């Protein structure tokens, strides 16, 4: 098989992923579950965390950005496949000449784009309404992009169980996302958490993205910056590979 035809095929699959991204933007970005679990959820969490506590607004901005990124980037994945199964569009999609991997990559890109874009809102609000300031803009940008990719992969992994009921997957996704949120040092610094939580913190991808964002705002990161990018890359790779495997296993279930 020639390198040129391999290149053409790869281009076709990449193009397919971008078409899936476009479809998801048109269909799912404004779906109520995405807006509730991806946008309203972090706002209410922030209010619950901030109100009545004597914390300077500047201190909460990195956590707010990380939390918004966490919920928004991982909100698209759990919705798309179950929704497609329930709407009976999944079978037609997987019979197109786009590989399952490219379809899932398109779903990851959808979460990535949504998370990255929506995270700009708390960044701007933080700059306008608080005295928080960014000391390292490239680090913030790359931290948000890397985190968005990882969290979007988590979202796609969470959509693997074969159900035609999107609410089941949204429930499962919150069962996974909420505990990981609490052990990641977003609300309470990792060093102030119980010992067990400190041990679990490295297992959460949010801990690393949160560290990068903290460092970009000049706060002390929980994990060294040099470690955070490889860890996020590792999480992304493992979770995407696992989603491909599980989606392949459950490909035709519940059609």
């Amino acid at each position, binding site marked *: 098989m020639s390198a040129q035809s391999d290149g053409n*095929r790869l281009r076709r699959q990449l193009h397919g992923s971008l078409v899936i991204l476009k479809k998801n933007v048109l269909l799912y970005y404004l779906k109520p579950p995405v807006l509730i679990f991806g946008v309203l959820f972090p706002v209410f969490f922030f209010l619950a965390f901030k109100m009545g506590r004597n914390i300077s607004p500047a201190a909460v901005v990195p956590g707010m950005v990380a939390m918004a990124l966490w919920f928004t980037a991982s909100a698209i994945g759990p919705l798309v496949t179950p929704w497609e199964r329930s709407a009976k569009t999944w079978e037609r999609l997987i*019979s*197109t*000449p786009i590989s399952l991997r490219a379809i899932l990559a398109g779903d990851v890109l959808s979460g990535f784009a949504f998370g990255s874009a929506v995270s700009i809102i708390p960044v701007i609000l933080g700059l306008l309404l608080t005295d928080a300031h960014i000391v390292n803009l490239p680090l913030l940008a790359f931290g948000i992009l890397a985190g968005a990719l990882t969290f979007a992969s988590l979202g796609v992994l969470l959509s693997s169980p074969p159900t035609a009921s999107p609410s089941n997957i949204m429930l499962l996704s919150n069962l996974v996302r909420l505990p990981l949120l609490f052990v990641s040092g977003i609300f309470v610094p990792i060093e102030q958490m119980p010992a067990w939580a400190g041990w679990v913190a490295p297992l959460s991808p949010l801990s690393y993205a949160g560290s990068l964002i903290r460092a970009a705002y000049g706060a002390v990161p929980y994990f060294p910056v040099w470690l955070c990018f490889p860890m996020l890359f590792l999480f992304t790779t493992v979770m995407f590979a696992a989603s491909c495997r599980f989606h392949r296993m459950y490909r035709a279930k519940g059609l």
Partner: protein
Amino acid sequence: MIDKAAEMKPVIRVNGLTMRFGDLTAVDGIDFQVARGEIFGFLGPNGAGKTTTVRMLTGVIEPTSGSATIQGHDIRKESILSREHIAVVPEQANVYLDLSVWRNLMLMAELYGIPRNRRVREGERLLEALGLLHRKDSKARELSKGLKQRLMLCAALVTEPEVLFLDEPTSGLDVQSARLIRKIVTELNADGLTVFITTHNMVEAGDICSRVAIINKGQIVAIDTPGNLRSMVRKRQYVEVVFREQAPPHEKLESLPRVNRMESDHGVFRLYTEAPGSVATLLAVLTVELELELEQLNTRKPSLEDVFLYYTGDGGSE
């Protein structure tokens, strides 16, 4: 069983294709070929394995064993290449209800990598042909079932397939939509499109299919042209006779040589026989002997529905 398609270059070639779900064997080692330009009907009762076969051939599920190729590409080893040649209108699938008719069409064409100019031109032509052009900007959820099915067909055809899989395409549709879909499929077939169609509608299958396969309990029990299949089921052939004013005694009719059984309904007698010509002659002789008069005398081949019932459990054995 002679597979005429074997003489031509097959577009679909299936060898020992099997699908098991746990202890259940949904499709049990089927073999067949579909030649270029055929409309191949795949008939069977509910649960016989039709949809499972379509899903295997279209890459939705992986077969447990056996092999199949589409345009020479193995459905397992070259799944994506084999899918490049096909388009599918699945039985229960739907269009994207929150997208407009036009967006649905363009999305499918983009997934198949159809260049922009071509997909716009073809999209408009197909919407016109299927009576949907005036609904181009409507959301798909606003369409009736029949119009949604027409849109599904448009979305499949805009991808410029060489093989079109239709799983129960006219099931539950209004007469106009069903007729229009059949018309378009027949016209496209005349232009060289190969069509693989599963249907419960025997009249439809008899009218449009060049060959049909009947699948029962996961196995193909018959495969040939509708005409040949009708001839093969000899016990289902009959002579239909109506007498003017008075009919002969039933025993006389039933005891005619080579009559297997007889049915009568409001003066219409059906004499089932493997030799309809001979029985018709004997009937004419009997009528003269009894000084009666014939009003109608016809020899009938079984319908495709009779053939289907014969092979799938209602017709006894030959």
